[in-house]
């Protein structure tokens, strides 16, 4: 059931961020930044990150279960798909930071 509740945090974070974008677009950048610094919103975001990572890990495991890859006589295990996709998640996250924030 925890898996299902991750969707609540995914959806609510998306809606909050759309509201922040609307503040940015209407020229109220300071209000948008103040909203991001609100302690309640920060606490929600920490929870949202934990639940989103839980969604990610269970999603990766499910991929390995639903679509195992055959390599010769052996078939990949779900935990192998989990590991490979966690590495991929780290690479993608670092690439996003490097390309969109640090560059």
């Amino acid at each position, binding site marked *: 059931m925890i898996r*299902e*509740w991750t*969707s*609540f*945090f*995914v*959806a*609510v*974070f*998306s*809606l909050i*961020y*759309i509201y*922040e*974008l*609307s503040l*940015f*677009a209407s020229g109220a*950048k300071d209000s*948008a*930044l103040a909203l*991001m*610094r609100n302690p309640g*919103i*920060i606490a*929600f*975001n*920490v929870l*949202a*990150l934990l639940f*989103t*990572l839980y*969604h*990610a890990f269970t*999603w*990766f495991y499910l991929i390995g279960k639903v679509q195992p890859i055959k390599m010769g006589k052996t078939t990949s295990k779900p935990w192998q798909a989990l590991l490979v*996709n966690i590495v*991929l*998640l780290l690479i*993608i*996250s670092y690439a*996003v*930071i490097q*390309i*969109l*924030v*640090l*560059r």
Partner: protein
Amino acid sequence: MPRVARLHAILWGVFSMGGFIAAFLLPVLIYLVGIAYPLGLWPLAGGDPTSAILNHHHIGTLFLFVTVAGSLYHGIFRFQSTLTELGLAPAKRALEAIGYLITIVGILVVAYYLLLLNPGVLSLP
């Protein structure tokens, strides 16, 4: 394949794609916007992440649109099906209608605001 079944398959396909987007792209956005910026953590030192991402016109705007729209679709679609499993099955049709309304309006609104923030995004890079 009947038209309704085909539509159903397409909606589930988009849901699955949203699941991948929420798994691979949403964690870094939540970290940057919701945790690293307000708490002053790496890699942000003072500057706000939304402006930094939007400064990379095409790719930054595309990243925000795909991540927010895909995650919203996946989150709402799954949450309304969770509510029906929690005993709200009699209101399934109403929940689906509200869910799709929020998703469609949300996606249109995020596209509109991103266009306002980056009017040149539709031109070729």
